[in-house]
């Protein structure tokens, strides 16, 4: 992956009447990366995608694609192609005519168009489907045709507006992997809009999390998951247990944190998110899989505390325990892998809980 910027979003705002959909968004999307816009519905992610595609003009700010400002340039003249949420397959055209739709405008001969269409269909595993009518396709096939139709244009950026949301779970998971592989293979920048955090984590190189028209955090999936900058981001991506905490001392290069439920620990100063004032820390977060129930007396952890199991839910490969820690009002969730020989403890059991300093995330 190269580091050159392909899209620069500079202070972009968009208002629809009195409603602000986007508020001063800045982001740089790199050439060849799989970039996701993630957020709950109404957060402005689709609006941002449509501003990039050219279906809407920003109220303020500019979108720069490949070094050229897109202000006033309509969608049909932009080097982007979109895969629509509804797929928008032309119902009056065959599969091949759908895929070749955009090529008819380019100066290409019949044979060149046919070859490009055949190649594009092969790329999405639909070789030989060219003569099918649009209505003969299944949901997954329509999705592939929409993708082929965008890819055949050889755009600088492919925009995907929740392309997998209409598919059933199995097919969706399969398409996530296929899309990711295809993107890496052809090396075109993909921008995906999704509300599904798991999908974003699986597919993306980087993710921008949007809340109420603003980017809350823009990072790689791993950093987003391990080091969310706010409680809201933390609970939007995966599950996070929150516990009250205070910073008791700030020595050079280290923070002493008092977490009543877990104990007193010392964290490296670099552990706090950028821009977070250590004095304002009031909460810490820890992921369910970062807490461990120590079933065996011989098991040891970096830090330990005790708790009482209040509920268990068995999910096949995992068991989720609700454990009430000392001095806590609410139970935390602990996920344990059901390895061979590991028993499930019932509610009411007193357990030892192990955890590690590195897994603690600080919040204001």
């Amino acid at each position, binding site marked *: 992956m190269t580091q050159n910027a392909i899209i620069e979003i500079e202070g972009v705002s968009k208002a629809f009447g009195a409603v602000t959909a986007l508020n001063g968004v800045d982001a740089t999307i790199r050439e060849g990366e799989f970039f996701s816009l993630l957020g709950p519905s109404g957060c402005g992610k689709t609006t941002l995608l449509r501003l990039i595609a050219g*279906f809407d003009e920003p109220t303020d700010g500019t979108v720069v694609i490949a070094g050229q400002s897109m202000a006033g340039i309509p969608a049909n003249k932009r080097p982007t192609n979109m895969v629509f*949420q509804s797929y*928008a397959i*032309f119902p*009056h055209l065959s599969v091949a005519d759908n895929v070749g739709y955009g090529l008819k405008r380019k100066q290409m001969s019949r044979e060149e168009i046919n070859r490009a269409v055949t190649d594009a269909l092969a790329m999405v595993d639909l070789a030989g489907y060219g003569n099918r009518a649009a209505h003969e396709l299944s949901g997954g096939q329509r999705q592939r045709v929409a993708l082929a139709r965008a890819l055949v244009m050889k755009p600088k950026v492919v925009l995907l507006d929740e392309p997998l949301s209409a598919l059933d779970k199995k097919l969706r998971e399969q398409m996530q992997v296929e899309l990711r592989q295809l993107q890496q293979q052809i090396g075109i920048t993909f921008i995906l809009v999704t509300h599904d955090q798991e999908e974003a984590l699986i597919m993306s190189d980087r993710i921008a999390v949007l809340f109420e028209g603003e980017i809350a955090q823009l990072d790689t999936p791993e950093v987003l998951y391990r080091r969310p900058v706010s409680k809201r981001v933390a609970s939007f991506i995966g599950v996070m247990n929150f516990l009250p905490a205070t910073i008791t001392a700030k020595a050079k290069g280290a923070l002493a944190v008092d977490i009543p439920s877990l104990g007193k620990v010392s964290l490296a100063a670099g552990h706090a998110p950028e821009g977070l004032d250590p004095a304002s820390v009031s909460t810490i977060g820890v992921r369910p899989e970062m807490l461990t129930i120590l079933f065996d007396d011989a098991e040891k952890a970096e830090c330990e505390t005790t708790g009482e199991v209040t509920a268990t839910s068995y999910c096949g490969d995992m068991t989720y325990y609700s454990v009430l820690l000392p001095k806590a009002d609410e139970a935390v969730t602990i996920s344990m892998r059901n390895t061979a020989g590991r028993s499930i403890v019932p509610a009411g059991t007193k357990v030892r809980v192990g955890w590690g300093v590195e897994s603690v995330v600080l919040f204001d």
Partner: protein
Amino acid sequence: MILSRESRQGLTLISPPFLYAILMLAAPMVMVVTFSFWTQNYLDLDRTPTFANYREAWTGEIFRVLMLRSLMISFFVTTVTVLLAFPIAYFLSFHVKRQKALWLFLITIPFWTSYLLRIFLWKVILGYNGVLNSALMGLGLIDEPLDFILYNVPAVIITLAHAWAPFAILPIFVALERIDRSLLEAAEDLGDGPVRRFLRVTLPLAMPGVLASTLIVFIPTVGDFVTPRLVGGPDGVMIANLIQVYFSKANNAPLATALAVSSMLIVASISLVIFLIGRKIGGRTQ
């Protein structure tokens, strides 16, 4: 025959309208067709089956001239109506964001007065001392009233096109409403400007509505007789006027019915051709 509860219920539901339809539509049709094979002998009917009426109708010049004129007028009316209806339907579907229902309601306003009254109003507009002539003279564009704007074929076309406009607007409007707006964005995204997008996506997808409008306007206007009678003058006489004359003044119902059946077959075959063309064009959208 034992029927399930559901089919019995279905039959009970459709029986009254079905009987009504047979009585009101099929029975007169059978009578018309039967009559066309009989002969009128002054006051009584000769019921020996004969093709004489059809022979007379198809060899006589008057039927050919009036039939062709009716088809020609109807063709113009249909073309004008559909061409004018399309932009209105397009505007309604794509540019009216709020209160679509109110706009649709406004389109039905012409129906608030009787058809006959509307034709008389066109006489008032197009007449020798009518609104149009007065206006043109008032503006000093002409010195004396134009006498070629009423009692001729164009007057029939204008009147019919106005009368049938709402019938043409609604099917096109429905077809346009059904177009998924993301298809238009997809066309734009793939490089089409507004004109090409219209020709490549909007128009093909609106074709079922356009064809429905074409048939809805074409079929009844061929047989219209009130409008040509009132605004057509001698040159604007259509096939239905001839049929009416044979029924009443000429007292020759068998010949009249033979003419009616003949024109019905012609209109039916033309409609079938239009329908089949439409199926071929719009077939893939279904």
